[in-house]
């Protein structure tokens, strides 16, 4: 792509380049990925400690607990999505770049999902077994988490872009994102519950997939607009 007399990489190269850079940053500082994962595991342990160790209760509450914990872990990791870039000024470089900001924001969100959504999906079977979830249900849980965390990454990127650079950003980010994330939680947790009780659950998977596709096509535009507003 040529802008003026400067040749810049193409659109896809820009998207992948942004994602690659974020992945490299995470590779150098793995704590950012591990902390939300530990948080996820610990929240899942808190519930049995608070409710009691009875097996029926754990089986019954399992899908809900795992999903709420995953949602909170995603929120925790969202805070740092644009923060370090905002602090060291590279966010302004992204805004000034000749590439469309929508694609760059999508690249960053993609990297965020790879480093916080995907690890949750991979870790979830371990915790699901502890909650006495049968094998088939674990598959459904992983499918819902995979689709749901995509939506959460995209929704959260809008919230993170709106609150970047604000003093009380962390609490505000949760306040903005949680009500929007409720449909994802409902579809995710209910689908796993339905699967656990042997009911028809395909509709929940379809709804989650539809939500993810909708978020994928709309959220990056909102994120890009929010980033421009936050950096005025």
């Amino acid at each position, binding site marked *: 792509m040529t802008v003026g007399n400067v040749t810049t990489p193409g659109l896809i190269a820009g998207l992948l380049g942004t994602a690659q850079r974020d992945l490299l940053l995470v590779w150098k500082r793995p704590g950012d990925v591990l902390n939300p994962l530990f948080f996820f595991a610990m929240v899942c342990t808190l519930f049995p400690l608070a409710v009691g160790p009875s097996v029926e209760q754990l089986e019954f509450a399992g899908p809900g607990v795992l999903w709420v914990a995953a949602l909170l872990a995603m929120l925790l990791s969202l805070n740092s999505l644009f923060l370090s870039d905002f602090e060291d000024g590279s966010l302004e470089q992204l805004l000034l770049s000749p590439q469309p900001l929508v694609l760059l924001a999508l690249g960053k969100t993609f990297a965020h999902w790879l480093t916080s959504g995907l690890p949750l999906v991979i870790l979830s079977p371990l915790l699901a077994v502890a909650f006495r979830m049968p094998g088939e249900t674990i598959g459904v849980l992983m499918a819902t988490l995979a689709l749901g965390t995509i939506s959460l990454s995209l929704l959260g990127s809008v919230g993170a872009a709106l609150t970047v650079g604000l003093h009380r950003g962390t609490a505000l980010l949760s306040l903005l994102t949680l009500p929007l994330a409720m449909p994802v939680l409902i579809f995710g947790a209910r689908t796993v519950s339905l699967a656990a009780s042997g009911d028809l659950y395909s509709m929940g998977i379809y709804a989650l997939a539809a939500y993810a596709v909708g978020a994928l096509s709309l959220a990056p535009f909102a994120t890009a607009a929010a980033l421009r507003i*936050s950096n005025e």
Partner: protein
Amino acid sequence: MWTFFHKLASPPHFYRLAKTLIPWFAVPGYLLLVYGTYAGLFLAPPDYQQGDAFRIIYVHVPAAYLSMMAYMILAVAGGIGLIWRMKLAHAVAASAAPIGASFTFLALATGSIWGRPMWGTWWEWTDPRLMSELILLFLYFGYMALRGAIDDTAKADKASAVLALVGAVNVPIIHFSVEWWSSLHQGPTLVREGGPAMDTAMLYPLLAMIFGFTFVFGAMLLRRIRTEVLHRERRTRWVKDLVLAD
């Protein structure tokens, strides 16, 4: 036609226009509310199933409808403000948010009071509409918190407009998901095929209350916009002239 819109967007003009409009909203609004309250409490017959407890719908239904309407106003005004950079639209959005949140709270409170004798509980988790209203209240809280957290007014306007638009896209999805989550509520009685399933002696007070609430909402919104415009334009010439003239 276009000059009308251009004039409408100018804060001093709207400030004066709103002053003349407010009585046209407030007087019919309060008259309808007085009639609706009297007719709803004394003229309408008690329900054959719910007895006198059904009378709370005369507050609950208008409040619930306005809570959603205010969010739509918020999102549409925010969108207009973002696209055409109309400052007045942002003032409308900023003024609509607290009123909408209050009506949402009113709808939740009356719904909960109605639920006590009907369902035997203050809060029925399985009712999808109560849940949607609660999530709507959270959306309002988030919107107002974002507005409050940004000091620069122009930036707060744009950021909250983006949030309101994202929220408006989500509201139907939230409603759908909550409905799927559970269903136990009496079905809609007002808007359905074959006309409302309600005796006219009960229906007319309800319609009067709905229109009365809407008019009073309009009057409240205009009044808030006037204050908001004055506050935003406090450094301009026309506000200084206005204050000095008094």
